[in-house]
């Protein structure tokens, strides 16, 4: 029998441990392995798809749920430069089995995340990941807000769950999450009910933060958002989004810009609300908000309103979120690639 030297033994042990560690960091491939996702850049930082529905829309009615779902599929395919519609979904959600979709339903049915958008995302998840819709939870802070935005509460029935943090048996986490200046309880929907979350906010003007989109929508995850509106919500928005659980479980942003409130927000004001029939889709929460902000500024200019900066409320939280201290995404035209899709 060959004797193993001490050096060989130690080297072997180190190699074995290294191999095991490396193996544990590689996510296991999804069951449907005929799609090769290994070549896809899954992070797509600084990439935003602007999806416009310009086809035949009946009068004031926006795109249907089916049209929206089709658009999101095309948008993600474009974002990933993928050959098929399915591979981006598997790249984004390689191991996820349960999904929470955070809406923003603060401002009633005229200025909340459209149910058609939320349900279209569920349709896509169902089709491309072969998951049951019951594994999806569409949610916001309160059932009252969801209902006022046109959602039908579904606690236990078939189809996606449509519930809120104030639904009986949900509530907030038992312990505080601290990050920077933020110290909050988190909705148990995001801590306990799903392992990943999709941010589906409404794009609108905000009297304090300037813009309410993807990053600001996380204020609906915490129990004490009222504490974090000082100094134009900065750096609080970045702090909340940097909470490790929120940051690590975030997968995708689908910003509802079908109608956009470009002034007078966050509440609905008919005189400053514009029908844009647009969605902004990205994996970069800062970049998608930056493009949303530019969209709001363009609408303000078109309607003779001054830039947000002149009103002293441009969204400084975006720059903070993009700063090296946070590294939540990209900020500025030079660092963001906008991909246009029309349907």
């Amino acid at each position, binding site marked *: 029998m060959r004797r193993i030297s001490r050096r060989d033994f130690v080297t072997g042990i180190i190699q074995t441990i290294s191999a095991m560690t490396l193996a544990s960091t590689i996510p296991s491939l999804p069951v449907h392995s005929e799609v090769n996702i290994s070549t896809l850049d899954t992070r797509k930082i600084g990439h935003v798809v602007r999806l416009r529905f310009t086809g035949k829309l009946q009068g004031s009615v926006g795109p249907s749920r089916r049209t929206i779902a089709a658009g999101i599929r095309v948008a993600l395919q474009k974002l990933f430069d993928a050959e098929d519609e399915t591979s981006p979904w598997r790249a984004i959600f390689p191991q996820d089995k349960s999904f929470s979709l955070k809406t923003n339903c603060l401002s009633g049915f005229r200025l909340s995340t459209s149910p058609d958008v939320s349900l279209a995302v569920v349709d896509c998840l169902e089709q491309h990941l072969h998951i049951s819709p019951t594994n999806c939870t569409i949610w916001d802070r309160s059932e009252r807000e969801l209902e006022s935005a046109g959602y039908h509460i579904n606690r236990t029935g078939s189809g996606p769950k449509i519930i809120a943090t104030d639904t009986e048996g949900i509530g*907030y986490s038992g312990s*505080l999450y*601290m990050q920077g200046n933020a110290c909050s309880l988190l909705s148990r929907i995001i801590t306990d009910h799903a392992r990943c979350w999709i941010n589906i906010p409404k794009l609108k003007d905000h*009297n304090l933060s300037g813009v309410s989109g993807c990053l600001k929508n996380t204020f609906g995850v915490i*129990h004490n958002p*009222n504490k974090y509106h*000082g100094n134009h919500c900065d750096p609080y928005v970045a702090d909340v989004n940097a909470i490790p659980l929120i940051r690590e479980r975030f997968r995708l942003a689908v910003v509802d810009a079908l109608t956009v409130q470009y002034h007078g*927000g*966050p509440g609905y*004001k008919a005189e400053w609300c514009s029908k844009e029939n647009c969605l902004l889709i990205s994996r970069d929460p800062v970049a998608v908000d930056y493009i949303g902000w530019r969209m709001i500024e363009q609408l303000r200019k078109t309607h003779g309103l001054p830039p947000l900066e002149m009103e002293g409320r441009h969204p400084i939280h975006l720059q903070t979120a993009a700063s090296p201290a946070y590294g939540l995404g990209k900020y500025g035209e030079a660092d963001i690639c906008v991909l246009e899709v029309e349907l």
Partner: protein
Amino acid sequence: MISTSLRSTRRTFIARSVCASGCLSFCALAQRAGMLAAESSPEQRRQASHWKRIREDVIECRLCPRLCNVADMERGYCGVRENRDGTYYTLVHSHPCTVNADPIEKKPLFHFLPGTKALSLATAGCNMLCKFCQNWEISQSRPEQLPRMQLPPEKLIALSRQTGCRSIAFTYSEPIIAYEYILDTAAQKERPDVSVIIISNGFINPEPFQELLPHLQSVKIDLKGFTETFYQTYCDGRLRPVLDTLVALRKSNVWFEIVTLLISGLNDSEKEITEMTRWLKEHVGCDVPVHFTRFHPTFQMKDHPPTQIRSIERACEIARVAGLKFVYTGNVPGHPGETTLCPQCKTSLIQRYGHFVKSNRIINGKCPDCGTTIPGRWEKV
């Protein structure tokens, strides 16, 4: 021996029965209050006071020095005042989240009807964010995140009578943000025998405070430190408005006491305590009781050590040297600093253990030994 023992047992039995029936009736009332809340709409709100529409439907809240600008559908920093279509509403009027019958000493108020009970209630929210808040579960929550009772002012007064409470204390969280609830309770005509008191951080604007003052019988103010830096860093507040509130109290006829929670290394330096107590003597007088209480790790300061007792004793000594006559230790049950001494003859007047009065020798507000008047609000004998 048997006879004595039997008498003792009977007495104990009766005493316990009285206590138990009191507790049961209180629980029943509280439960009933809870049931009423369950039947009520979660949307219950009342129009708030002290605000102004500043543009379109953006409101400026003028209740506290924050002067929150609140857009439609949004709430102020406190989380309990909401803008709906350009009108400002309070969401906590008549909706306490907790109600208890506490010893008045727990507030702490040591010179206000000692040995009596206060019906103590809290509503959700606060206009500060103290990293050491002992009641953060309610003070840092919004009303809809907590159980809510429905206790309008008239029922509050009835409940205080039924539970043998001599006062109603708005406490635990910050009462200022339940301003309309306090005012409506204090303005009830049918309460000559029930005092209304607030346990507050004093972070309120002068105008609403002047409006509230005539309706109050007693106030306890938390003076959380004596530097703007401490207020900004650890409370997300400001010191100056709190000092203004203390001066306003001094000019009123309302009884008030001051509490400072000492936190080792943060607000307990000799310099800071000296400056604080000198300011207090000059601006609010030497008769105002000042309590230095002990910090215990909690909320965002779980890693900070409890205050050393000798730090509290040192603060008391500095205050006495500065000329304050009634200085107390707090959160150190059994400490001699809980006792009220006559400032003239130094005899013990009120002995306490924690929140409980062991003996009270004050007669009609005077020391029984030397006749010195002891400032406060006392039972007449």
